């Protein structure tokens, strides 16, 4: 007989067996959804801790802030290009004709309580969203977190960055102010530069000739429905893969490729991540309160005959704009047709090319290195010098293009010639990345050598020893065992050896023709890298160090007169000054 539900006493037995409140809810849910099995492991899922793992979280939480503030804005914003007379509170524009989109944006800014706050929070959160995605991307790349099995999550992340950028562009175009209208006008020029189909794309998007009255409502649908839907789906996939793969971790004592060390999701990680959401939200609210952004009322409504000096897009659109600025004015006129290379190459081809390179980085690296193993331990940037140098070269290219996008501002603020800046950048965008690559690679290798020094000869103590000959040297002491282990917790680089181009039957292997190139790239990839010492080398170095210490031991705390010590002789029997 089952006695578990029978009271054994009259006191609190009945309540003692009762599950807690959380248990009641969990029971109710499990009987309908069967979540017990899935939650069994995941509630206490382990997440490793490191400050840099927080960068992606900033992106995630700022996206949530964007959703919340964005929904608020849609209640008042009107995506219409119908011409109205502005009659709101801002008297400098009162009585002017403008589109309903612009008028409703002014209404949100001046006549809806909290409206300006939500607008500014939305714009700041958008900037934070894109900036944190970029920094998160750099963290993932520099630490090798994109390697197998996480390549697809890298691809998803790159798509998120692309979509986030487009979302930003469509978003800041919506107020239909003078600056954003100029941006749309330029975008029309970009489209028209596409050979064969360019004008058709422009006429279809604008519903006829520029500017038409369709572009704002169409951008609105793209901004509030299409792209956010895609972003949500991809973010969900990004997070699911993160949970499935388990987070990468830094090597260290107790951490291996087969385990993950950290805090459980419930309660610590849930509290930290949840608390961090409030912090991101709070910082955004503070920025919306105190830092003015995109004051459309100062720019005025869009008018196709007007423009402001220093017209620039939001910062994440700056680099293709820079490419557009430094591109020479090349056009080809052939058989009555025009190809505008000066627009098509920098804003259509180049961003597409750069994005493709970004997507392909994990696959390019694994093809060159031949490394198809799973990796869960992160690598320090210095321990993958070529990888690090590639990203620094790409960053240099990006930075120079971005500077080119502000060439007019640079010219004015620094009192330089805009022509000279432009000529300089035309060369620098090609040379800069090459120089950055070389410097970074050598820098990484030199840091590797420094690590090797620390492992083999210990750290610099700052204690200066004077030898009997009068020479000075610094005393080195071995580093802590845990630090020493962490320094050695990395892979040895392994050269990929090409297989024979043909198999035993003389049939060409697929990809065999490229293997020569691959072998050369592989060699260059690892060239001059410092490999961690073997146990024997470490033993030898420690032995040597002990010998040094023995030699130096008698000097401890004394001054020696010197001549009885010529360096490396045994010192037994010798006497020190003052001891006799």
């Amino acid at each position: 007989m089952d006695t578990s539900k029978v009271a054994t006493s009259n006191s609190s037995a009945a309540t003692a067996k009762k599950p807690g409140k959380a248990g009641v809810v969990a029971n109710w849910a499990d009987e309908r959804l069967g979540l017990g099995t899935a939650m069994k492991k995941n509630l206490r899922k382990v997440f490793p801790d490191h400050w840099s793992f927080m960068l992606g979280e900033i992106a995630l939480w700022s996206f949530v802030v964007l959703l919340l503030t964005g929904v608020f804005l849609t209640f008042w914003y009107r995506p219409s290009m119908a011409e109205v007379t502005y009659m709101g509170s801002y008297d400098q524009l009162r009585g002017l004709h403008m589109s309903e989109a612009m008028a409703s944006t002014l209404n949100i800014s001046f006549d809806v309580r909290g409206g300006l706050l939500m607008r500014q929070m939305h714009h700041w959160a958008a900037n934070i969203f894109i900036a944190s995605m970029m920094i998160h991307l750099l963290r993932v790349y520099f630490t090798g977190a994109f390697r197998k099995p996480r390549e697809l999550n890298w691809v998803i992340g790159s798509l998120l960055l692309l979509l986030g950028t487009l979302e930003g562009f469509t978003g800041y175009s919506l107020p239909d102010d003078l600056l954003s209208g100029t941006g749309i006008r330029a975008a029309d020029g970009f489209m028209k530069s596409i050979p064969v189909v360019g004008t058709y794309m422009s006429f279809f998007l604008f519903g006829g000739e520029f500017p038409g009255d369709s572009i704002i409502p169409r951008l609105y649908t793209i901004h509030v429905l299409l792209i956010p839907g895609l972003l949500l789906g991809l973010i969900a996939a990004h997070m699911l893969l993160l949970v499935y793969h388990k987070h990468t971790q830094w090597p260290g004592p107790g951490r291996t490729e087969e385990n993950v060390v950290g805090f459980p999701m419930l309660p610590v990680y849930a509290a930290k991540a949840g608390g961090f959401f409030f912090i991101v939200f709070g910082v955004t609210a503070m920025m919306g309160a105190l830092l003015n952004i995109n004051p459309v009322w100062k720019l005025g409504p869009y008018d196709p005959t007007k423009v402001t000096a220093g017209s620039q897009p939001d910062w994440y659109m700056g680099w293709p704009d820079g490419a557009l600025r430094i591109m020479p004015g090349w056009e080809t006129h052939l058989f009555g047709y025009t190809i505008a290379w000066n627009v098509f190459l920098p804003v259509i081809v180049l961003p597409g090319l750069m994005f493709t390179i970004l997507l392909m980085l994990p696959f390019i690296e694994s093809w060159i290195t031949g490394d198809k193993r799973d990796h869960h331990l992160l690598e320090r940037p210095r321990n993958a010098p070529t990888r690090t140098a590639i990203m620094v070269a790409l960053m240099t290219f990006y930075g120079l293009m971005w500077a080119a996008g502000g060439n007019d501002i640079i010219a004015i603020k620094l009192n330089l010639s805009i022509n000279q800046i432009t000529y300089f950048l035309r060369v620098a965008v090609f040379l800069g990345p090459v120089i950055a690559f070389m410097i970074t690679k050598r820098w990484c290798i030199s840091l590797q050598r420094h690590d090797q020094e620390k492992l083999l000869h210990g750290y610099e103590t700052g204690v200066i020893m004077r030898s009997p000959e009068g020479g000075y040297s610094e005393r080195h002491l071995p580093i802590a065992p845990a630090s020493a282990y962490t320094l050695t917790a990395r892979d040895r680089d392994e050269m990929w050896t090409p297989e024979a181009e043909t198999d035993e039957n003389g049939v060409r292997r697929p990809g065999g023709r490229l293997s020569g190139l691959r072998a050369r790239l592989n060699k260059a990839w690892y060239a001059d890298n410092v490999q961690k010492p073997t146990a024997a080398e470490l033993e030898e170095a420690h032995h040597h160090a002990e010998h040094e210490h023995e030699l130096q031991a008698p000097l401890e705390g004394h001054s020696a007169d010197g001549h009885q010590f010529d360096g490396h002789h045994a010192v037994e029997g010798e006497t020190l000054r003052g001891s006799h």
Partner: protein
Amino acid sequence: MTDIQHGEQAGKHLPATTEEPIANPGLPEHTWRPTDVDDDAARRAERQVATMFGLASVFAVLFVVAYFSFDVGDSWETVLGLGASNIALGTTLGMALLLIGVGIIQWARKLMADHEMVEMRHPARSSDEDRAATLAALDAGLEESGIARRPLVRNSLIASITLLLAPAVVLFRDLGPTPSQAAASGPDAGLENTIWKPDMRVVRDVIGTPIRAADLEVGDLVNAEPEAIFPTEENGYPEIEGVELYVAKSKAAVVVVRMDPDDVIPGEGRDNWSVDGIVCYSKICTHVGCPISLYERTTHHLLCPCHQSTFDLADSGRVVFGPAGRHLPQLPLAVDAEGFLVAQSDFTEPVGPSYWERDHKDIGEQGEAEL
């Protein structure tokens, strides 16, 4: 540390040497925090966290108070160029959120268990048995469907689904007219025409008053429009508004500049396009279409603020610097009986950015304006 090797990859990429110089010492021992061992410290942390949550509630209430006590509208410039309402709402909301966030994190750091846990990873790939079972299921499913044995069914299905793309694409056809349809809709429509007509007056762009040639000094620049943009009963041009007006303005905007007549180097066939050193050019940049506006009087250069293309207005608007590929289209000018500037004709080439179908004719090949 050992490298994980899986399936067919195993053995192919063995490390050069498997020995490790230093053995993994294992997880460091857990150290207790003051809040773990000292009840006072724990209670202090508890009070800290509760105080933060309490202050957050205060700020939430203050937000509501601020919402109802500060005006928006005219008071928009009260503090820091922003409204008092905006600042008060933003800072109270921000403080409430920040205090909740910091409180929760303090709770997690000081009071929740801080034992690091170890969880084993699993390879991303499935086990060999699962793979084999899945492949078998896939094979069975495909076999039972007969997709391999009945190529007619398979191929016709692929073809029909591919053709579904056609409705999906065609459906968007009505997003807008084609460029040629747009051009056919009126005499001013399309990429190659503007609203300019022979003898149409050049008027100031904001107020619409005509420009008397004699009123312009050397060095003057006037942003101008065709008179048809400002229809009145007097000039008799038809009403224009909304989209039509914006399209017309976006193509017809011009700059009128007066320089020393000796400085003007007329382009081939353009000897009579200027009036006493007064020249007129399209304001729409030939690069990507920004309205150009920055004029340097001494050099006659006009600079586009978007991408810094620079055009020489004394020399047929040729590009002297920047990414633009073509000169600015010039509007042939004349003076009417009352001494006002008028156009001799429409532009002799399309204005604005380049596009595929554009038939380029250099200055000199364009011939005389249709007078």
